[in-house]
């Protein structure tokens, strides 16, 4: 499978809930992927993910370009030595276009972010992200699965068993939860409540993130929540369209980031910045302090690798920037 003449590219997507890694070859085919939980410790999860990837591919595999994306993209970029640090929208759009060049709508629901990307003729023409509200994202489903003591993997299946969804308020997760508790206390079966919840979240997504967007088929649904077939069915019901969940729905961000790294490698004359597979053995320390230089009181973050300062950011002015 691994060809020494082939070029390989690594993409790392670190979000609020999960950390995903993907290695692709020059023809953008996925070679290997890793999906683990971030558990609130992005540095550790990147190290763990890199180690898992190394164990699967062998440390002789040369990475010709690395990219990072996700809400922790800047930090991740410094840790792995990314050649390109890009936002999730661009990464997801590229990955979707690779698997389906005709795609016109990409719906992505992750741990705390949900987004919609509108594509026409292979070009992103519009997008939206959830703003201040995380209702309907993975972390809420996770929490409710926990509360109902159902493994999150079973959530979707259970929803499919119900043919009588109860109505649940999907505007706000706090109200959704009180609504669910109320419905439980009335005696509704769990499967009906779960189905009701999926429908509420689907409606919420379409009326918030998807508001005013021209949703046309083919529609791709990806991100961690796409694992939930209850949600897929909900979208099919409301949109009256077939919803495609790509095979690697959970690591699409990482694949997109790897594609960006591949694109970048074509333009770049220098060697890749990618650290090495030994990242997991290195010692990374992050520390922070408040700058008292002015009344902005910026929170400065410093990243050290084996006691060497490698990055510093957080200031409004350029005072604390590292100069190469």
């Amino acid at each position, binding site marked *: 499978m691994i060809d020494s003449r082939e070029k390989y590219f690594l993409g790392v997507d670190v979000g609020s809930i999960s950390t995903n890694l993907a290695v692709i070859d020059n023809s953008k085919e996925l070679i290997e992927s890793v999906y683990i939980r971030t558990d609130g410790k992005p540095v550790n999860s990147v190290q763990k993910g890199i180690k898992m990837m190394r164990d699967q591919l062998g440390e002789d595999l040369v990475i010709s370009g690395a990219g990072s994306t996700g*809400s922790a993209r800047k930090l991740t970029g410094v840790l792995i030595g990314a050649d390109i640090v*890009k*936002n*999730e*929208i*661009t990464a997801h759009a590229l990955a979707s276009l690779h698997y389906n060049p005709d795609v016109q709508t990409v719906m992505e629901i992750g741990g705390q972010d949900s987004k919609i990307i509108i594509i026409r003729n292979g*070009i*992103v*023409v*519009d*997008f939206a*992200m959830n*703003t*201040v509200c995380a209702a309907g994202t993975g972390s809420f489903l996770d929490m409710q699965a926990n509360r109902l003591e159902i493994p999150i993997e079973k959530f979707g299946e259970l929803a499919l068993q119900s043919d009588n969804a109860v109505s649940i308020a999907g505007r706000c997760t706090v109200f959704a939860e009180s609504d669910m508790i109320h419905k439980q206390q009335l005696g509704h079966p769990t499967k009906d409540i779960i189905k009701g919840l999926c429908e509420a979240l689907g409606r919420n997504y379409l009326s918030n993130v998807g508001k*005013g967007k*021209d949703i046309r088929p083919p529609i791709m649904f990806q991100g961690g929540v796409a694992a939930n077939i209850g949600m897929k069915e909900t979208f099919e019901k409301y949109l009256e369209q077939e919803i495609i969940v790509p095979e690697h729905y959970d690591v699409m961000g990482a694949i997109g980031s790897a594609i960006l790294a591949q694109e970048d490698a074509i*333009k770049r004359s220098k060697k890749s910045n990618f650290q090495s597979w030994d990242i997991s053995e290195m010692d990374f320390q992050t520390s922070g302090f408040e700058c008292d230089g*002015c*009344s*902005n*009181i*910026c929170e400065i973050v410093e990243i050290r690798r084996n006691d060497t300062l490698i990055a510093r950011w957080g200031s*409004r002015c350029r005072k604390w920037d590292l100069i190469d």
Partner: protein
Amino acid sequence: MKDLDRKIRVGIPRALLFYKFSDLWITFFEHLGAEVIISPETTKQIKNVAVSLAPDEDCYSTKLYFGHAMALKDKVDYLFIPRFGGRKKKYVGCPKFIGLAEVLRSMIPDLPEILMPHYNRGMDKHTRIGLLVRAFRLAKIFRKNPFVRISAINKAFKAQRFHNKSLIIDEETLQKWENSEVILNDFPIYNENEKQLKIALVGHSYVLNDPFSSLNIRSLLQGYGVDIITSEQIPRKLIEKQMAKLDYDIYFDFEREILGTIMHFIESKTVDGIIHLLIFSCGPDSIAGEIAARLSKRNPTIPLLQLVFDELTGEAGMRTRIEAFVDMLRRSIDEKVIFHITQVRI
């Protein structure tokens, strides 16, 4: 007149209409022999004071005004908080601005004396002559000599006219900008092999020009190699021309400038994209925002990004949106296009 050995100190909060009329006000007071003290640029500290003090229902920019007024509180003899309703008979500015001085006085009793001349062209008695009379009377606090007072008023209006003239471009300059012959704002920082992007940055003066409340969007765009034009710079004639195309008359003066700019670029297609900055919970903004979104949807050639700012806005999410928008515009451009970089600044 206060009996002091030193100059009388007049404090002007660096917020809201200061960004439109600073030249008028500063020239007026300085010519009358006053020392004008302007609050510093918005900082986190000013914001924190503002948010804890201001009424909940005020918009973010009005809240910030409270912070700026507090920053001047112990440093000045007078605070200048004009009650400005609007400069046109038919249109209004923001009703909040008319009440601001009174609200501040009632909420913070130990403020210095507030100078709050009222001008609202929409009211029958508020003629242009009336404005001059009010300025003349206000000037008496500083100088008794009527000739000095008249001269201060003249100088102030002259300074404001000069400000407007250098800010608002003419149609010919706009055309030059559209043809990439001139740069109107900061020079974008270009990366190799990247096409120069043109974006219209649209919003209230007090959002466009306050890096804190707009999360530094101007320098962010500059860093992405984007050449911008702002709604403040657009020729008034073009704005009125666009406004005449609506079936209804937009009643909010500042919103006319914003909406007119968006409509102009949707029609002329001379920019790659439009970024519309809105302030939560500005009433007029929410109306203009909705109209702009609908117009853009009907005519989707020029992408429109709408960003809503308030004190809870997360910087990370905003940056992601702006970066994704710029990426989207860059990727949609034909690769064969010749890289052209504008060299001239006016």
